């Protein structure tokens, strides 16, 4: 019995100690972000500066946009950085998010095999290219994961009037995976797929794939930071999360984003002042 009490006292003392140690918490926030800003190395390049100036550590969960927003809905993230305008609007309309700000933009591209069976290389019209892919029944890899890229892909198919599901089991391959998995699959088949430029440039297993369509206004890729609504997320660390949103959308963060280079290219164009 005595030992039991000793254990209890030890546990209570430990908890109290842990609480006391927490008193001035070195704030740590969880950022649910889209994979492209993390896999391309952008966040790893800019977040240390934020941590240095504010003392706030940012833990990055790299997820597809749909999953990132769901993680925040469940209260498991403190802030989100995503790129799907429609899903973001829903997130805000449902009352989960507030204070949406665009911090950067770049673009999507269609990549495909060098042999180009749908004859679309050099095109600047994504919808026409998709139509040609469907007509040629050329292999196309879809992410099928409710990511921002997947959402844009489905919007493009809608504009072609082709139901890609009609190609399921033959030319339309829904792999249900991230951008990297989709590019690996497309390189292996080979097949066409829609990619964000950031992941494409940092991707190392391109195989026979080349950029076939770029420069269409429909392919613009906007990255938004969204803070969480205190009414719905009382438990989230909203104050340090707000500092991150501020930092990303003001000069220090914007400069850091603009200074990030991959293979000599400016990959993310800061756009907080002039949203695209």
């Amino acid at each position: 019995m005595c030992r039991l009490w000793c254990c209890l006292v030890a546990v209570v003392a430990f908890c109290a100690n842990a609480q006391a140690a927490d008193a001035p918490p070195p704030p740590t926030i969880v950022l649910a972000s889209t994979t492209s800003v993390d896999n391309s190395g952008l966040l790893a390049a800019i977040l240390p500066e934020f941590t240095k100036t504010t003392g706030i550590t940012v833990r990055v969960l790299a997820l597809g946009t749909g999953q990132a927003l769901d993680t925040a809905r469940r209260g498991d993230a403190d802030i989100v950085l995503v790129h799907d305008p429609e899903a973001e609007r829903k997130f805000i309309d449902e009352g989960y998010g507030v204070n949406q700000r665009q911090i950067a933009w770049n673009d999507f591209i269609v990549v495909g095999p060098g042999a180009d069976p749908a004859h679309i290389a050099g095109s600047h019209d994504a919808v026409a290219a998709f139509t040609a892919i469907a007509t040629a029944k050329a292999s196309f890899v879809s992410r099928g994961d409710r990511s921002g890229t997947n959402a844009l892909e489905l919007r493009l198919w809608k504009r072609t009037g082709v139901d890609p599901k009609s190609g399921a089991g033959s030319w339309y391959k829904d792999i249900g995976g991230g951008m990297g998995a989709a590019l690996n699959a497309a390189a292996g088949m080979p097949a066409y797929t829609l990619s964000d430029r950031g992941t494409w440039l940092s991707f190392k297993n391109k195989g026979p794939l080349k950029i076939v369509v770029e420069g269409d206004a429909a392919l613009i890729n906007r990255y938004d930071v969204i803070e969480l609504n205190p009414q719905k997320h009382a438990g989230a660390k909203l104050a340090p999360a707000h500092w991150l949103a501020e930092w990303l959308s003001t000069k220090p963060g914007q400069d850091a984003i603009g200074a990030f280079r991959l293979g000599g290219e400016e990959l993310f164009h800061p756009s907080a002042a002039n949203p695209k």
Partner: protein
Amino acid sequence: MSDFATLSDAFASRELWQIIALSLSVSLSATALAALMGLPLGAALAIWRFPGRAPIVFAANALFGLPPVVVGLALYLLLSHSGPFGFFDLLFTPEAMVLAQTALALPIVTALAHRAAAERWSEYGDALMDLGASRPRAVPTLIAMARIHMLTAVLAGFGRTVSEVGAIIIVGGNIAAYTRTMTTAIVLETSKGDLPLALGLGMVLIGLSVTISAVAFAVAGRSSW
């Protein structure tokens, strides 16, 4: 050759050593927890006859193939801030990964420990009881008698934990410098298309796991059994 350079770069970076350290500490902690519970439980299941014993033994054996991704998902829902245990604030921490891997290793350790203990108990159980041992005292005795088999049980549990990715990537979140392990780093590098680096990390992981098993057997082999 350039591929090899990337892996040697990885070795030179502190990040890789952090990842290796986290992998080992998570998997070894989970294995230790599973051993602390599973070995006595396995022995107890061999010694005591009670209603419900057979279903427990059956469950432990059946759960050998517990899918990590399902364990990860269930634990995610439990630890989520909108779940029942969200107030512990454990989601996306190394502790959550230890919990997940413990759940995966426990059935394996328990079932294998039970098998080894049951064999010894049928051989020496009567003798032990005649010598005046009580059943509770027989638990550590059985574990000690079958220690090489118990070690196999624990190493099987370790093999399960160190190699799995499905559970920890869900409850850990693969956060750089915090919850990124060897297996989740391999998934990440594969998704970045850096297949040589991913494969290199895989080789390192296999090397580590083989080394640990070899050391464990060498140590056990030195003490007589």
